[in-house]
């Protein structure tokens, strides 16, 4: 039995959460990979001086030897056109992909949650209108929207970000709405009403906290998809400047050498897929953590 004190119980909750997460081996693997990307992005963004890069935010070409070279002692991942060392380039590129993914997914999730919760809270025609708008935006292909916005606002990282946020929030709005609607049907909501709790308080004290964790899981699952999307856009030439270290762009550099130097595309491509895989595994682990059944098994 624990002491009558709130602290140990919080602590026990956290411990239980960690236990659940760490009992899922592939989620732990996902987390470790994710952390590599995270520290890479963190160091390049804030402490680039500790790395031996002269130009941390640019690719360094070597026009003396532009043809892709196979992996060797000097270039562990080989090089890509024009003479770019792939290991260096990948370390530099992760920064942009990682932060951009977060900058898209978090505002998207916040907008989506707000819209979704307002829709469930008010219901009726407000719900109807909001969900109709959501559906319309949802039906626009991201590529079309990104290109259109790039055309209007100029082909910058910002316009790409705006386009992707615009594309992504409806996903969360729909998801948040379905989660809040489901939560709303649980009997503890009815118990709260029987206790005289106001609707607004029910929304914030009961519905929101129970809807956040599944949305958080969705966010972590989505980071990978978003990075894939960013890379895809970069691959087809959506980036504003050449030489910008970005995984999709880096992959596209090897395109002309696919037959003679396959590593030039495969290796940076693998790093995009690896991230998507890692966050998926990690998200599964988070899903276990918020599942009361998995919790009570331990």
């Amino acid at each position, binding site marked *: 039995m624990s002491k009558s004190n709130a602290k140990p119980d919080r602590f026990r909750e956290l411990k239980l959460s960690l236990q659940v997460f760490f009992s899922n081996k592939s989620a732990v693997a996902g987390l470790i990979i994710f952390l590599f990307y995270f520290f890479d992005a963190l160091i390049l963004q804030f402490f680039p001086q500790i790395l031996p890069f002269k130009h941390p935010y640019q690719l360094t070409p070597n026009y003396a030897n532009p043809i892709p070279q196979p992996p060797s002692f000097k270039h562990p991942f080989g090089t890509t056109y024009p003479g770019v060392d792939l290991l260096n380039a990948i370390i530099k590129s992760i920064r942009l992909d990682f932060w951009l993914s977060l900058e898209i997914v978090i505002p998207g999730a916040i907008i989506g949650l707000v819209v979704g919760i307002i829709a469930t809270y008010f219901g009726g025609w407000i719900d109807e209108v909001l969900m109709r708008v959501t559906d319309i935006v949802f039906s626009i292909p991201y590529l079309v929207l990104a290109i259109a916005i790039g055309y209007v606002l100029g082909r910058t990282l910002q316009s790409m970000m705006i386009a992707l946020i615009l594309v992504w929030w409806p996903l969360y709005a729909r998801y948040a709405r379905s989660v809040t609607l489901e939560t709303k049907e649980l009997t503890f909501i009815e118990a709260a009403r029987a206790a005289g709790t106001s609707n607004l*308080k029910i929304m914030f004290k009961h519905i929101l906290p129970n809807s956040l964790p599944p949305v958080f899981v969705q966010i972590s699952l989505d980071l990978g998809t978003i990075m894939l999307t960013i890379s895809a856009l970069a691959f087809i030439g959506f980036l504003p400047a050449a030489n910008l270290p970005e995984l999709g762009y880096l992959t596209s550099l090897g395109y002309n050498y696919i037959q003679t130097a396959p590593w030039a595309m495969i290796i940076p491509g693998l790093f995009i897929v690896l991230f998507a895989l890692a966050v998926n595994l990690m998200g599964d682990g988070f899903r276990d953590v918020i599942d009361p059944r998995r*919790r009570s098994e331990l």
Partner: protein
Amino acid sequence: MIIAARNLSKFFDVKGVKNAKIRAVEDVNIEIKEGEIVGLVGESGSGKSTLGRLLIRLIEPTSGEILYNIPDKELDEFDIALKNKDDNAIKKIVDKYSITKLHGNELKKFRRNVGIVFQDPYSSLNPRLKIEDIIAEPIIETGYLKGNEAKERVLELLDEVQLPREFSYRYPHELSGGQRQRVALARGIATNPKLVILDEPTSALDVSIQAEILELLKELREKYNISMLLITHNISVVSYMADRVFVMYAGKIMEKGSKNDIIKNPEHPYTQALISAVPQIKRIKARIILKGDPPNLINPPKGCRFHPRCPVALPTCGWTADEVKPTLDYLIDTKYFTEFTNANVEIKNELELIANNVDINKLKEIINIEKENYKPLLSIKDIVQENGRVALKLYQYETPELIELENGREVECLLFSPKNKAS
């Protein structure tokens, strides 16, 4: 009476279908005395939970009155006023006791006097809140107590439901089903209510734990004289717990009476079937097996809602042409198809059918033979030749009302109406 309802109805909208209503509770009269446990029994879907929620204004009634804490004398006056349509007298009592129009602080005060416990102790406790905060919610939200006093009350309540005080800092998932239901019970009685609705409080629990919870409920009733409406489909729970029993079927109360009367001597045909289905050590009566399913509540049967399944239904229990037609079709097209050529039956109106290409005498003869086997045929009053066709006219059906028998027993069945009793 701690609570009484008159002509209480709740019709739910059907999503996506205009003008269709689920008549979950219709025209119900009930009353619960101070300190009494009333069992509300009936099959699933008969409207028990809806009725329970209506009584404490968790959902708004479509029509009818709910009177809280009304002295018996004034309830009698109210019934007389309803009968005489004496609007002034009705209004006087409604203003004083009705809870259907309460709002704001008045409603909060009412919420303090009532509580509810739900069936599933897993979904009825918010997994993100500590037990302490779960039990304190009604205490704080209804303004019953604040701050440290509220905290103290939570600990008291944990004692009351026989849980260790340490549990106040736990989360629901750390507790077993039985322990959770005790927490739900503590919340239900947190503000010292006069009436608690118990909606299948033990149905989700293991049998051994069920008994403990029922025992605890009994103790709490003894100690605090709380009135309880115990909703259940389990007759043995009712027979163990209740003082009185209400039997519900398809949104209507079929029978009310003391527990002993209802269980030992059920009068209503539905109650008889319900009770006979309970395994007993000493079987007194043969088991009555009901055919068919409970009716659809969007378009419930006319007259007595039980008539399609009632083993002793009368010709006037609610039969309409759409119920008679399938039987006639079956007789003409299948069972006696050799006797007819090109015969068919159409519905003229609710109480009349037309048969084409049939010989009236043959039809009469067949109906006479088959009456015993096919209840709907009972409702055929006349068979006459009309413009070369045969018209089948049905008895005008009646809708039974609650009739008072001795000992406060009430039955809603035409067998007990004075007219049918005489014959």
